[in-house]
């Protein structure tokens, strides 16, 4: 075997060993846990092999970090995702940029969750851990990278670059010192678009969310397996809402990231990958609420099973969608097909089969349910709410699966438009928020409707009043807001106020049981913020020039405006000026100044400056990132839609001086150039002769000229006129940043007039941008709502944990 200079061969071998060990140990562990159901002696070995697997997973992760931190670019994964110049946090975060790393992240969270469950699951342990260990087997198999016959199982993160398929026949792979080649001097690094602090927190949170859906799934399997159809609910409840909280947070982080940095123009684009994570969250939330119903009333068991089992299956499905490449053409997140679609499908089908088979076998043993729910019972309305969430999930899941449907049925359905998503989802949102409003006021079993109406009246009418007043005041109905949006605004406000009312009047402000109310308030605010900010968002960069062919309202998309440098245009309430661009690292930043004109005095004040930028990225293409000005009640969001690539890297104030303009003036006269206002104050006899080497001059005099800019700031310049050896000469006043030169030419002592001339660089015609500016009113409601919802869910989980431990003594 060739010894390659500088190559750390052993490290990769060790890493690969860890992966294989984790696969084998997980397999053994699954088998032992399964056996321990009937024979307790296996339990010890089950746990030992589980922890061997834990060590192996940690070893795998540790090896990769070791390779990254030691800059071993001979390894494909390190070369592709890391480099030596990124800040440490990105060197750390690049671990999960690639598919192999993100599988490991998922596996890591399972290791954490599983190990906790061994400690706390008590008699459920063998059942739950069989499922957990089985999942670990599948995840480990994604990383094996071994060839069995013609098929490669998994993609190993420990491949050397020279071992990669596309490089196998390359001559340089035979060179002993190939590592000295330029390619291996440094890695490619994290995609610049991902070099953002969100990259350090969004994936880990999201993957913990995905991983945690396995816990309620495993409890359901365990419950069905043991024929203990209701007993699994109490231990599983805190885990279920923990998962709701974490997965929800992960999804919202994605939205915040998109809003802040990407050019979606918003926080949610109904992008297939976004949808794929939302779908299981909806079924999980629905399932969690049905579990609550069953706990109180022993009804709706079947639905609880279906929803919780579906959640994990949907997580596996979404994994398949995002990693198999099938979404290739319809998503901005498209991953490439690593050739693992077969394995991903196997993973999906294995657990689908497990869930369906077990459910079908046990369905005949389901306990008889008590009398049907009365309509005015809390459990009936919660049940409806769960159904609404499930239908919403179905809508999103079905439409996101169009590429799969196309592949199977040979159809050619294209990605659904945002407005079509909103059509149905608005309806579901109205139903769900309405149910959130009234749900808590219903009592379990049955409700006294008179008391109910009385309790609800206050928040109902207040919400109605607020919605109608706001609609009137803000002219919401004149926007493209339809009746449906207004109804949704009402139900969201209602949800917030009703739950607030419940918290204050019924719970008397006690925090103990307030989790759900607070979470619902947060959810209502979140939706309210989302609806208001998108529904009433106003594009202020409306373009009044240009022809538009009226083929439908979609075709008058005059949302972009073109600005040349120093152009000032009116946008909304502001006067906006494009001041210029400058380079900062790999970004080209554009200075966009927002000013307001005082209608009384006419003076113009600068309000703020935004710096949207374009990130130069040879790999992925240049990416435009927005800059946003945050106010309490709205955001002003600006981003560059188009800029000439050629002139991007040229940031000097280029251009030529134009023709000179000459005027004969008296003191006090004003001259106008393209960009400036010049006022001639008079002649000045005190000239710094030493500085200008005018010692020999017979006469030297300067003109005092004040040059004003748009904001009435002035610069004072002193062009000089002197006579030396009888010859009149001038020294121009040159202001390179202003692109202006001023000279004093003739002096007529009789009339007192002088000749002032100037030349200037006119606006650089090549420096222009096309940009879009949007106002998002009320968007802070969205973020505040997110935080409140998370707090409320945390409170609810803690309450569940206290109850569970209380019950178990």
């Amino acid at each position, binding site marked *: 075997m060739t010894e390659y200079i500088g190559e750390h061969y052993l490290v990769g071998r060790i890493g690969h060993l860890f992966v294989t060990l984790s696969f084998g140990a997980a397999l053994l562990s699954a088998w032992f846990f399964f056996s321990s159901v009937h024979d307790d002696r296996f339990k010890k070995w089950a746990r030992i092999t589980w922890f061997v697997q834990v060590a192996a997973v940690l070893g795998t992760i540790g090896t990769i970090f070791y390779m990254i931190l030691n800059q071993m670019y001979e390894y494909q994964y390190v070369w*592709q995702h890391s480099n030596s110049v990124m800040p440490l946090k990105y060197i750390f975060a690049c671990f999960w940029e*690639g598919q192999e790393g993100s599988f490991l992240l998922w596996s890591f969270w399972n290791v954490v969750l599983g190990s906790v469950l061994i400690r706390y699951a008590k008699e459920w342990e063998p059942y739950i851990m069989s499922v957990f260990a089985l999942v670990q087997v599948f995840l480990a198999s994604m990383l094996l990278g071994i060839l069995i016959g013609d098929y490669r199982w998994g993609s190993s993160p420990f491949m050397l670059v020279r071992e*990669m398929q*596309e*490089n196998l026949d*390359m001559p340089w792979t035979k060179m002993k010192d190939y590592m000295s*080649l*330029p*390619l291996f001097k*440094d890695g490619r690094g994290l995609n610049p678009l991902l070099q953002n602090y969100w990259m350090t927190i969004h994936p880990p949170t999201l993957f913990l969310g995905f991983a945690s859906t396995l816990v309620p799934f495993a409890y359901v399997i365990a419950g069905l397996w043991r024929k203990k159809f209701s007993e699994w609910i109490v231990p599983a409840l805190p885990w279920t809402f923990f998962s709701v909280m974490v997965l929800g947070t992960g999804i919202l982080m994605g939205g915040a990231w998109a809003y802040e940095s990407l050019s979606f123009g918003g926080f949610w684009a109904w992008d297939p990958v976004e949808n794929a994570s939302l779908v299981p969250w909806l079924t999980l939330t629905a399932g969690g609420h049905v579990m609550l119903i069953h706990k109180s009333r022993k009804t709706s068991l079947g639905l609880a099973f279906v929803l919780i089992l579906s959640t994990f299956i949907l997580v596996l499905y979404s994994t398949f969608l995002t990693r198999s490449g099938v979404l290739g*053409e*319809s998503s901005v997140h*498209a*991953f*490439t097909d690593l050739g693992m679609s077969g394995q991903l499908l196997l993973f999906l089908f294995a657990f689908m089969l497990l869930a369906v088979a077990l459910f079908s076998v046990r369905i005949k043993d389901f306990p008889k349910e008590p009398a*049907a*729910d009365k*309509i005015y019972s809390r459990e*009936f309305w919660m*049940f409806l709410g769960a*159904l609404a969430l499930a*239908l919403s999930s*179905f*809508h999103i899941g*079905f*439409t996101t699966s*169009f590429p799969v449907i196309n592949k199977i049925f040979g*159809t*050619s*359905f*294209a990605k*659904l*438009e945002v407005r*079509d998503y909103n*059509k*149905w989802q608005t309806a579901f949102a109205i139903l769900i928020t309405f149910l959130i409003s009234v749900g808590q006021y219903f009592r379990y079993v049955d409700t006294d409707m008179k008391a109910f109406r009385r309790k609800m009246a206050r928040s109902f009418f207040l919400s109605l009043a607020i919605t109608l007043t706001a609609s009137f005041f803000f002219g919401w109905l004149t926007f493209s807001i339809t009746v449906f949006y207004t109804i949704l605004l009402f139900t969201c406000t209602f949800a917030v106020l009703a739950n607030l009312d419940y918290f204050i009047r019924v719970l008397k402000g006690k925090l103990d049981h307030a989790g759900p109310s607070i979470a619902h308030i947060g959810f209502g605010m979140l939706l309210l913020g989302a609806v208001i900010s998108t529904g009433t968002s106003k594009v202020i960069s409306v*373009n009044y*020039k*240009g*022809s*538009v*062919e009226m*083929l*439908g309202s979609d*075709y008058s*998309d005059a949302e*972009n*405006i*073109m600005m*040349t440098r120093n152009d000032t245009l009116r946008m909304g309430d502001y006067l906006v000026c494009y001041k210029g661009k400058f380079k900062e690292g790999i970004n080209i930043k554009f200075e966009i100044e927002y000013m307001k004109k005082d209608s009384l005095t006419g003076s113009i004040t600068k309000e703020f400056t935004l710096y949207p930028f*374009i990130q130069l990225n*040879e*790999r*992925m*293409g*240049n990416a435009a990132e927005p800059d946003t000005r945050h106010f309490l009640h709205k955001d002003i969001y600006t981003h560059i*839609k*188009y800029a000439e690539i050629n002139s991007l890297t040229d940031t000097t104030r280029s251009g030529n001086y134009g023709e000179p303009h000459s005027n004969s003036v008296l003191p006090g006269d004003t001259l106008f150039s393209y960009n400036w206002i010049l006022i001639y104050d008079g002649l000045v006899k005190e000239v710094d002769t030493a500085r200008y080497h005018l010692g020999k001059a017979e006469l030297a005099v300067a003109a005092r000229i004040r040059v004003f800019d748009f904001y009435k700031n002035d610069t004072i310049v002193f062009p000089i006129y002197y006579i030396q050896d009888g010859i009149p000469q001038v020294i121009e006043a040159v202001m390179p940043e202003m692109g202006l030169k001023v000279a004093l030419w003739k002096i007529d002592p009789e009339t007192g007039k002088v000749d002032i001339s100037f030349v200037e660089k006119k606006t650089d015609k090549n420096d*222009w941008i*096309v940009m879009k500016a949007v106002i998002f009113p009320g968007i802070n409601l969205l973020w505040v709502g997110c935080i409140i919802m998370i707090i409320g869910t945390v409170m609810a989980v803690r309450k569940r944990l206290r109850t569970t431990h209380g019950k178990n003594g």
Partner: protein
Amino acid sequence: MKLTQILVIAIIAVAIGIIFSTLTDAGTYDVFNTAFSNEGKEYHVVGKFNKEKGSIYDPEKDPNRFTFFMVDSMGTEKCVVLHKEKPADFEHAEKVVIIGKAKDDTFHARDILMKCPSKYNDAQAKDPTTTSR
């Protein structure tokens, strides 16, 4: 009928409604010939930009108008007017998907999706003896 049974039927009805409604609303991928035979109806057309014929983007005149020529999968070439700004990486796109309607001899697109070379495509691994990235 029991309440639960009514609900089950209602759920199934809504689900079917969803399926029908979304399938009807969804655009379809098609070729130019179909679009031009059904003027005024919206289609998604996949194709390649004809580099030789160039493109026109004059933001001073209209920043929301970009003209170019596209060839679809059947080889039909048409003039396309996109009623948006020129996409940043237009020249690098392997394929584009335009969404719009045909009118007379031009296809008027209201949106465009670009399919750029795969993010993870290192097959063009370049010559490691010369490149450093």
